[in-house]
């Protein structure tokens, strides 16, 4: 489904973000992580948990009532040592990136870099 360039893009995103130890591309509708770039390859169970968390936070049925009918596009689990970022594609709501980044983080840089990658591989963009 993905050619080598998307793997490279995911690796490049992780390397670009200081302290990023994991970047994963997920299909929220299928609740599946399709690609992972990580310093140390995580176990499948860990990836599955991350994907479930992403889906819970970005696709929870009660959230649109808080956001004028819109689903959430971002979720952050902030810890003292590292934080988890879940970022839904603005162009294809079923696509999301999961990033685990050591604190302190440059949140704006994370949002921008993640959305840039999602946009480029979304509808009308490159084929992932």
């Amino acid at each position, binding site marked *: 489904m993905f050619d080598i360039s998307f793997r490279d893009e995911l690796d490049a995103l992780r390397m670009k973000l200081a302290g990023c130890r994991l970047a994963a591309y997920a299909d929220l509708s299928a609740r599946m992580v399709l690609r992972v770039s990580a310093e*140390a390859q*995580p*176990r499948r*169970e*860990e990836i599955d*948990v*991350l994907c479930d*968390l992403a889906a*819970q*936070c*970005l696709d*929870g*049925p*009660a*959230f649109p*009532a*808080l*956001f*004028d009918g*819109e689903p*959430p*596009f*971002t*979720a*952050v*689990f*902030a*810890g*003292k*040592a*590292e*934080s*988890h970022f879940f970022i839904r594609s*603005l162009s294809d709501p079923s696509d999301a990136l999961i990033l*685990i980044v*050591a*604190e302190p983080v440059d*949140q*704006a840089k994370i*949002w*921008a870099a993640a*959305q840039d990658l999602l946009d480029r591989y979304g509808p009308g963009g490159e084929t992932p």
Partner: protein
Amino acid sequence: MKDTRRLAERIRKLAGSEASSPEGRELPPGPDGSPLAAILREVDETILPRSLVFRRGEGRLVVSAANRRLLMVDTAEGPDAAAATDIVGRPLTQPDVALLGRLRDALVSALPGNDPIRVRPAPASGAAGDFAAGTTAVALASAWGIDLATATGNDPADAVEDFLGTAPSLSRAWLRLDAGMVTETGGDQALTARLRDFADSADMAELDMLPDANRSRFIAIGRAPGDGDCLIFVSDKAEAALLLIPAESLDSARTSWRKAVG
């Protein structure tokens, strides 16, 4: 609800004890200096398969843990670690009384002395798909007479209380929760009503019960970055809070939270 509070307490402890030292996080020993409470608390807070590397002075102990269960002692090194030899590598599923005793002695002997205990978790390398493998930390604590609920050492102060000291100024609406009940509200009434509805939702219940995937209890959920409002959920041992803040204030809120948890 009891389980929810217990999970919230675990998440609070995890966030409070986390540190970025290369030597690992420092753990408080038990009142008698024993490392057992520290080891079991760490196992009890481990959901995903992990190798937990404990160090104390010259002692080094590596255990495998997952699903809040101690699966195996992988390594025990140090001047007093000889007592652990027959425990290393043994599966700890349904241990008999004799094995429980030897396991206890092994853990204590591997981390002797009065130096600080440090732990560094690492992703486990072996397979751990069996959810019944090993023994729960709670069961071990019960067998060894350790009260995990009270043996918490240097618990941080009430982070939600501290956070709410500054966060309302950032928020458009907020409410404070104690055991799932709204105890205080503030800000825009219409938005507060939305938060009340959310507090009663299944999504809220799921947030309150999320595992410690990133050892955090500060969760922010929002629209596109910088767009509209952002929901923040925070919790600690005593209580929880929901806030709606402008997305551009998220960084400030995170900073306030980091200060609140020390």
